[in-house]
């Protein structure tokens, strides 16, 4: 026998289920309970940067829209700074910038969206810059453990991004890139399975 290591194990994930809105977006479930619902202010009105809207649909393996999905976004500000103590520049983060938000779908169409500011280049590992991106976490009925992915922008310099370059099949990198559809709007569809399956990440 050897000494025990005594680490704890991470709690197992369980699906967020079809009624995730009750807990995380009760207004969408059909009632008001909290003074302030969380997740609708990624970038407050004082935060500087280019205001953008991101929209998309999550598709299942049959090509049908997933209408009960909830997506969380986490991103840096326009200068690439995260509002978190682990970012060495966090004291300079934009005023009123939370960096985190939630998006839920229209129950009829499956379209989700959120308003934010466009993130800047973020310092990556070993000083290698990462192209502007928004980190996404996707939960829904039928998803046993939240799916992580990243959304990049098709009007940015993505070629040298160290994470995109880790995707072995080059054409699959396109699944991580949002398309500009208007002056300040982007489209980012997510495919859980099948043709064009989005690259998901074990972070």
């Amino acid at each position: 026998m050897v000494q025990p290591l005594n680490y704890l194990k991470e709690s197992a994930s369980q699906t967020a289920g079809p009624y995730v809105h009750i807990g995380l977006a009760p207004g969408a479930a059909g009632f008001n309970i909290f003074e302030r619902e969380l997740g609708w202010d990624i970038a407050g009105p004082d935060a500087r940067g280019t205001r953008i809207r991101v929209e998309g649909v999550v598709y299942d393996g049959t090509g049908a829209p997933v209408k009960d999905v909830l997506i969380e976004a986490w991103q840096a500000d326009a200068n690439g700074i995260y509002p978190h103590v682990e970012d060495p520049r966090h004291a300079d983060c934009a005023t009123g910038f939370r960096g985190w938000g939630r998006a839920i779908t229209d129950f009829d169409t499956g379209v989700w969206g959120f308003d934010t500011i466009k993130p800047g280049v973020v310092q990556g590992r070993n000083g290698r810059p990462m192209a502007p991106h928004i980190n996404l976490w996707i939960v829904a009925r039928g998803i046993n453990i939240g799916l992580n992915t990243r959304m990049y922008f098709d009007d940015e310099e993505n070629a040298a991004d160290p994470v995109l370059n880790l995707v072995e099949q080059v054409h699959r990198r396109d699944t991580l890139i949002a398309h500009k559809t208007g002056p300040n709007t982007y489209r980012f569809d997510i495919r859980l399975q099948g043709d064009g399956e989005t690259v998901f990440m074990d972070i």
Partner: protein
Amino acid sequence: MKPAEFYQRDRLWQPPALTPDYKTSVARSPRFAMLSLQGSMSEITGPTFGHSDIDAIDNDLIKNYAKTGDPVGERIIVHGRVLDENGSGVPNTLVEIWQANAGGRYRHKKDSYLAPIDPNFGGCGRTITDDQGYYYFRTVKPGAYPWRNWVNNWRPAHIHVSVFGTAFAQRLITQMYFEGDPLIAKCPIVQTIPDQRAIDQLIAPLDLNAAVPLDCLAYKFDIVLRGRRSTLFENRLEGN
């Protein structure tokens, strides 16, 4: 100082994406392998919340939607700690819960189960852990309810729990079950978890010491988030 990364998530402990007995997972599970990423600034940071984001009553589901009186059901306290895999408490982190009422009905426009809505029960709450990672809620014990999977599937009584931790890499949603519930072993959603020890870790024991005599029972539920490495001898992180 180098930012410390998280221990890799144990994918043999966590449920896989494809679990055919839970039918909805079949069309909603990615088929390709995930891309494994070493932690960068995007993963080791995450949102922070403060007491200005919530109200004191938000963790009391017996009172936070009461209109004409208290909700029907077995009054319970749910309490415990948010810990990391190193055994340290995770302070000041947001914990959100949601659940069905005592009859097994959710207050949701998409729930059409024949059990009635309770006019005094919303079914959601939230709180922020204290400096030791401790949290508590007061609520009523949720009822079991049927769901469409096989024709006679019933969810065991459960409370959905959402936790943040300090980093986006720790984000977790799980469900808390109740000691002694015979439906746990029969539930295809519970059984998506491959390791029985991981299932046991989601079952809250009755905690009479935390009950309020002549008022309400208590269950204890600790939640474990991923732990972080120490930066021993690391002066160059290899790789990308």
